[in-house]
């Protein structure tokens, strides 16, 4: 059950430094939204506020609202642990648990949710690995360490691990930046498939990737070092790349800066 994300008036801080300021945007269910922008513009920070991962770092805080359908993720009584079970995340560098087998990696989140039965686990592990286009490559070595896979396979393993707990939303923080072009293509194909079931937000430095995989694109920018990142515009991806309404977006996309 994919859900809609509604961000309004969102600011995030590292200590006293404001990393992003007054962000408001909407992400429709079963779409892919790409966050693009120069380094340090706060796009990853915005992403990390969507599953309350931002506050894992000591001294950080968030202001504003993030609605998942109609529930404010920062509202009173909301448990960040439960939020992260609903909003899954894939990171820049593939990070399977190094001591665990492929199977155990995918099952890790399920075990946290109290799933114990072997047949239940087996079913979800296979379904998730199939969902991540990895099943055929690893079905004969599920008990081998996850670290034995190639970088691209590890990243798909991490995607399998994230979707195993059936999240509503999948956040991806530059999921292909550590991968070669062929593995990147495999992940992009996967994103296109996952779109039918999940709401996906992807941060990327690769503008062709944003153009290929996303329905909508948000462009972030900073006025200068030490300034907070801001959302410049968000629109249909073809429009952002062909005819953006903001001059800064056009400059960035055409490679005049950033």
């Amino acid at each position, binding site marked *: 059950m994919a859900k809609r994300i509604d961000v309004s008036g969102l600011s995030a801080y590292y200590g006293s430094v404001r990393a992003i300021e007054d962000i408001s945007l909407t992400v429709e269910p079963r779409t892919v939204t790409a966050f693009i922008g120069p380094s340090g513009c706060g796009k990853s920070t915005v992403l990390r506020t969507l599953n309350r*991962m931002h506050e894992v770092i000591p001294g950080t805080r968030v202001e504003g609202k993030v609605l998942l359908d109609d529930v404010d993720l920062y509202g009173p009584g909301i448990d960040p*642990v439960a939020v992260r079970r609903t909003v*899954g995340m894939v990171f820049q560098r593939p*990070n*399977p*648990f190094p001591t665990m087998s492929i199977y155990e990696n995918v099952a890790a989140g399920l075990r946290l949710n109290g799933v114990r039965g072997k047949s239940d686990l087996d079913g979800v592990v296979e379904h998730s690995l199939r969902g991540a286009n990895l099943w055929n490559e690893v079905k004969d070595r599920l008990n081998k360490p996850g670290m034995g896979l190639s970088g691209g396979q590890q990243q798909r393993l991490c995607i399998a*691990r*994230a979707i195993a*707990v059936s999240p509503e939303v999948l956040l991806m923080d530059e999921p292909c930046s550590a991968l070669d072009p062929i593995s990147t293509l495999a992940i992009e194909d996967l994103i296109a498939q996952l779109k039918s079931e999940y709401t996906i937000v992807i941060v990327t430095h690769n503008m062709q990737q944003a153009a290929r995989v996303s329905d909508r694109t948000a462009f972030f920018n900073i006025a200068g070092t030490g300034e907070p990142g801001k959302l410049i515009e968000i629109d249909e991806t073809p429009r952002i790349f062909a005819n953006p309404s903001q001059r800064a977006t056009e400059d960035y996309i055409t490679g005049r800066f950033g």
Partner: protein
Amino acid sequence: MSNERLSPVADADEVEVRDPRSGLTAKAGLGDRLFGGSARGAAVFILILMAAIAAFLIYQAAEAIGKDQVNFVTSFTWDPDGNSTPNGQPEFGIAAIAWGTLVTSVIGVLLGAPVAIGVALFITQYLPRKIGSVFGYIVDLLAAVPSVVYGLWGLLVLDQHMSGVSKIIEDVLGWIPLFKTDGTYGSSMFTAGVVLAIMILPIIAAIAREIYKQTPREQIEAAYALGATRWEMIRLAVLPYGRSGVTSAIILGFGRALGETIAVAMVLTQVPGLVTRILQPGGNTIAANIAVQFGDAFTTGRQALIASGLVLFLMTLIVNYAARVVVRRAGKAGS
């Protein structure tokens, strides 16, 4: 420059004067030779010294064992000077004191290691960084307390309170021979084990702290992103990452407990023969036995103590080697 030299128009005389190897040959100065020589000398000296010590100890030990009327490995008695043997001949064996050494050290590790790991996790995962480092420093201070002070404290303070605890343990687990007593408590191997636990706690805690602190951010975030609570994150990311290092830290702590001398000697009431009841007074360890017996021992007695010291050395050597194997194996598995 090299172009100039290689060019055909270069002056012929100049070419002859210049050694083509100039600038590439070694130029070992006095300082280099002096330092290299003294470093080599120091290394050789240490090796010779160690070989000499080993030869001396092994010779002494062998002589004593040669005179031993009972089996050195299996006998429980310790009377190398023949003070109370029927014919005044030496009778001594390592079994009873080796047993006491192992039992007290195992108790020390069983009690100390979990607390040390808890302390390390608390400092690295629960406390804010600044308070954590202060707290860690205080735990490190435990290692700075001289062992004779631990001995005094164990004997005069801790032992008073062990009777009650020991009685409860006997009431619950008394059906196991190990935990049975003759009704007296204290000055026991259990008390010595508790003292050892406190003594090895700081080293295990310090190593574990350093390892847990280095848990990769990606692993921690991977766990949190799956919806792990803090404890679940520790189980998924921190503990597996630290497993091999902390295991070897525990083994190192065990090695220290094996060799601890004066605190154990002060706490234990030395009783001849094998003591299997850990809650009642009695028991002995190799190191404590040496400390207590050496002053009154005659020639064979001293040689026998040296033999026991060699056995202790062998035990700690094996334990330390085991710690290395654990680390090396984990390193291979991890890469």
